């Protein structure tokens, strides 16, 4: 299990190349579950959403990526695109940690 925190207020088209690279490094070697703490992210666009999906797809079989601390606009983008049915969303990293990785 590993918690990865995003230290950026936007995951947008201008940030996406760097974000994917940082995610690759942050996730590398993790086993089991990765919790992505998005509580510092005030805004995401569809390229940022795509980058999170890409990061999840790159994880080995048996690993999962859970998302925590989504701020209102970020949560709206996940819900509108129905990506909330692909990822498990938690109100905070603590809430995610309290829930078993099922």
């Amino acid at each position, binding site marked *: 299990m590993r918690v990865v925190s995003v230290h950026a207020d*936007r995951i*947008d*088209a*201008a940030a996406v190349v760097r974000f994917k690279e940082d995610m690759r490094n942050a996730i590398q070697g993790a086993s089991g579950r990765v919790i992505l703490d998005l509580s510092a992210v005030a*805004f995401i*666009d*569809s*390229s940022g*959403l*795509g*980058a999170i*999906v*890409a990061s*999840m*797809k790159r994880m080995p079989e048996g690993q999962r990526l859970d998302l925590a601390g989504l701020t*209102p*606009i970020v949560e*709206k*983008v996940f819900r*509108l*695109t*129905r*990506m909330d*049915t*692909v990822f498990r969303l938690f109100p905070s990293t603590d809430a995610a940690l309290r829930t078993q990785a099922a």
Partner: protein
Amino acid sequence: MTGALPVPDPAAGWPHGRRFTSVFRARAGDARDALRSVKQALRRAGIDPVRAGEVEIALTEAVNNVVEHAYGDPDAGFVRMNLTLRGGVLKVRLSDTGRPMPGECLPAGHPANLAVPRGMLPEGGFGWFLIRTLADDVRHERHNGTNTLSLQFRL
């Protein structure tokens, strides 16, 4: 001193009254700066933060489309974004002189199909769906080599 408080103007703080204009080069970094200035302008106008967030999502997707598809090269041209606020409606006109839309018409913007194995999940193609979901009216025209996307948002 008169005792009367000024009536709050929903467009207060917008340059040129109720209009806000931003012209920027079609590159991701410049687009981000322009979208930040729009976000601040919406806040100054006193627009409900939830609706302002929805406007921000739709405009970002529209601007991304111009940057990536209409231009999409290092010699990117300019994008003009005009916002007009009147009677509880925000009208946005986004113009560029890049390539025409494929088929010269707006994409339908269907929701992405997520009923696929994990390795096949879509990493894009959400933009037009978000724009069409969040804006109340979406129109596109191409005239004399200029693409204009007009979006309306009820506030």
